[in-house]
């Protein structure tokens, strides 16, 4: 809309920005809904804050603040329409990008995958049975809400307590409604049912490892008749940033997110810490990664370029063939020709894998140069499959582009005596490349990250010898996936994020170049 309409002049602005039709009920509903959304976001942010997940918590708070401002201020009415979509964009697209960048500079990995507070809390929950701890007699109890508790009696002193998980022991004198039997075992007490003796075995197996009482002083049931006093095993010492083993006195010092003792033993879980650019230097210098990474990097480019080229050539050949008014049943033929495009790749790639199967496949059993075992022929196989998957798209867009080339240009060329070959080289091809160039670049970016076909064909295999998870047909995105989720020796999220960032830089540069080239960004300004 290059032409501005009368409605944009100042006088009408106010009226166009008024949103409600004046209904009070609507207004109330709006504010109730707004309060719910903002309340939810704030509460979630607060919970995340408790766990020490500061960036994610901050994102929630900022989103809540943003929504409140947008829906309360009168000048931001247009934003109210966009805000719902923006919330999702911020929380699940923009924040993940920021978080990926952060992760790339940490050692986030298996064994280092919770926040520090959570890790400390989890370690401090561990208990041990101290040497010479008295053996206690116990009786199973069930609270009215179904949770378990026990009645403990120290046979040496005769002291009796009510022991509930995560609470301090309650002395018998303080227990309300207590009626004791002749053996000192309660027959009834408020809020609890005393369970029959035949329930003891079940109770022991259901409450294995449960500490009745607090970590500092509690008891665990060790057999159907005995319970032992337990103590908290590890205490966090903020001064040395270490865990101290209460049983042995051993000190586990925080080393890059894992509490480690001098002898190398550790307590888990650990937490990620910032390690600077070490993930990036690992890719570039570590012999375990440098070689495979370079090969995968090159193959990713070769793969993306060849995929675009082969589908373009075949699609163009087909489009030139079909671009004639004399062909009967045009519509039907066209639908049949683009059928591969209408079926999701997760189906068709596997069908091709079946066709190429060396023992049972229709093609593979007749001709098998190593479709899944030879590094070279695996690559040929994937390119072959991608040709079948990708040519219909090229056919569609090229046919569209061909039909928009004015016919009189060909007439003129013919008059000048240009043959078909000359016409194609000097007229059709250049015009095609101009109009579908951006789509070719888009196709390059798509194939650059085409995880599905690589993974479905052969999981990136055959494996590169001595290169960990890397395979010969792996591209960067499938390599990232394997580092993050496919490792047999644990997952390295930090390293995977670093590879993601390298991909991002490449794809981002290509895409922005494409935007510039097509003037898509400028189009916005023209359209204001």
């Amino acid at each position, binding site marked *: *809309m290059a032409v501005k309409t009368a409605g*944009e002049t100042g006088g009408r602005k106010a009226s*166009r920005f008024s*949103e*409600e*039709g*004046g209904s009070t009920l609507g207004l109330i509903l709006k504010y109730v809904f707004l309060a719910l959304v903002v309340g939810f976001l704030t509460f979630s942010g607060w919970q*995340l804050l408790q766990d020490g997940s500061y960036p*994610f918590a901050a994102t929630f708070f900022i989103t809540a603040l943003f929504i409140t401002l947008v829906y309360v201020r009168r000048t931001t009415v*247009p*934003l*109210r*329409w*966009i805000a719902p*979509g923006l919330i*999702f*964009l911020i*929380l699940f697209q923009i924040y*993940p*990008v920021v*978080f*990926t960048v952060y*992760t790339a500079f940490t050692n*986030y990995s298996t064994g280092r*995958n919770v926040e520090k507070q959570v890790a400390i809390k989890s370690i401090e929950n561990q208990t041990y049975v101290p040497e010479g701890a008295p053996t206690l007699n116990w009786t199973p109890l069930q609270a009215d809400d179904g949770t378990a508790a026990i009645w403990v009696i120290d046979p040496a002193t005769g002291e009796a307590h009510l022991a509930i998980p995560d609470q301090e022991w309650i002395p018998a004198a303080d227990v309300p409604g207590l009626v004791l039997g002749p053996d000192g075992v309660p027959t009834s007490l408020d809020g609890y049912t005393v369970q029959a003796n035949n329930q003891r075995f079940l109770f022991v197996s259901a409450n294995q490892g449960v500490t009745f009482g607090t970590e500092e002083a509690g008891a665990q049931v060790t057999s159907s008749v005995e319970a032992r006093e337990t103590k908290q095993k590890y205490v966090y010492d903020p001064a040395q940033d270490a865990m101290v083993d209460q049983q042995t006195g051993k000190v586990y010092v925080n080393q890059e997110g894992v509490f480690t003792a001098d002898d190398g033993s550790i307590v888990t879980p650990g937490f990620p810490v910032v390690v600077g650019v070490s993930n990036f230097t690992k890719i570039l210098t570590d012999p375990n990664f440098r070689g495979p990474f370079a090969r995968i990097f090159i193959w990713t480019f070769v793969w993306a370029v060849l995929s675009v080229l082969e589908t373009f050539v075949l699609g*163009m*050949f*087909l489009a*030139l063939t*079909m*671009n*004639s008014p004399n062909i*009967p049943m045009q519509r039907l033929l066209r639908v*049949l*020709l*683009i*059928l591969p495009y*209408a*079926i999701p790749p*997760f189906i068709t790639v596997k*069908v091709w894998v*079946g066709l190429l199967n060396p023992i*049972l*496949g*229709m093609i593979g059993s007749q001709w098998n140069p190593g479709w899944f075992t030879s590094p070279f022929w695996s690559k040929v196989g994937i390119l072959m499959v991608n040709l079948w998957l990708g040519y219909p798209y090229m056919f569609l867009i090229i046919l569209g582009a*061909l039909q928009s080339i004015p016919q009189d240009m*060909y007439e003129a060329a013919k008059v000048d005596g240009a043959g*078909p*070959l000359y*016409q*194609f080289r000097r007229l059709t091809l250049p015009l095609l490349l101009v109009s579908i160039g951006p789509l070719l670049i888009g196709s390059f970016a798509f194939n650059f*990250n085409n*995880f599905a076909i690589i993974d479905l064909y052969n999981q990136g295999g055959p494996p590169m010898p001595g290169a960990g998870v890397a395979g010969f047909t792996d591209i960067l*995105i499938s390599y990232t996936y394997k580092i*993050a989720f496919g490792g047999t020796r644990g997952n390295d999220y930090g390293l995977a*994020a670093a590879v993601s960032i390298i991909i991002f830089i490449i*794809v*981002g540069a290509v895409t*922005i170049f494409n935007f510039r080239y097509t003037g898509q960004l400028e189009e916005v300004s023209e359209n*204001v």
Partner: protein
Amino acid sequence: MSSAPVIPSGTVRKSPGMTMKRRRRLDTTWRLIVAFLFIAYALFPILYVIGTSLNPSGSLQSSQIFPSNPTLANYQKLLTSQQNPFLKWMLNSLLVSTTTAIITVALCAVAAYSFSRFRWRSRKRLLQGLLLSQVFPNVLAMVALYLILQQIGRYYPAFGLNTLGGLILIYLGGAIGFNTWLMKGFFDTVPRDLDESAMLDGASAWQTFYTIILPLVRPVLAVIFMLSFIGTYGDYLLAKVMLSNTEKYTVAVGLSLFIGQQFGQRWGEFAAGAVIAAIPTLILFYISQSQLQGGLTSGAIKG
């Protein structure tokens, strides 16, 4: 590019003795031959998998594409399998894709209306920002998304890892970027006089949007719904990363694992599953033939 094969685009080389009519017939004939060769190439794997799904032996090995004694045994086996709850996968996929597509259409429609009809200070910048946000596809943030869902799951188990709710949230993150662009272009083609006069009659912006604009932009809503549905239905990577329990799989993840092991014996069941799984997108594809073309082109032509 100079190595591209050279195809005469309009006519074949003329031999002097031929009449116009014969020449045209010859030209059409070779075009048809090429077309049929390509159709054979396009259909061969598809017919092959249909044939296999009807093959009673259930193995890959079969010299003819269509078995001489077709049965539905593979379908029966697939649908009653305890180990691979295929129907559950289909339902999961349909649920996730439909929900994502509906919410995407709703979010984009209101955003596109605002971009198309209101004028405010940072409109241009926000519109550019939306486009730029698409530079970083969310599959690249898979590690972060995984860790985020892990975190969310601690407080809201229904949206954590290994849940369909969490997966939908992730898909919605990428919902409004490009689709809002496409929609805005289409909204711009609806004459402003329509909403101007509605507003003069006292309609609020919401009423104008809901009663005047929405019915007129139905084609583009359908297009966005279909694009979103097909994209979500076909997603393999994010679903594979986020879902770990067989019961929770979408059909894209489930079907791929189906023939990971014991390839030969499961092939018949896989083929039956492939045929069923292809149906939703084929239906949409069939419906959208004209809709898609019309919706996309008119969306591209800005007012």
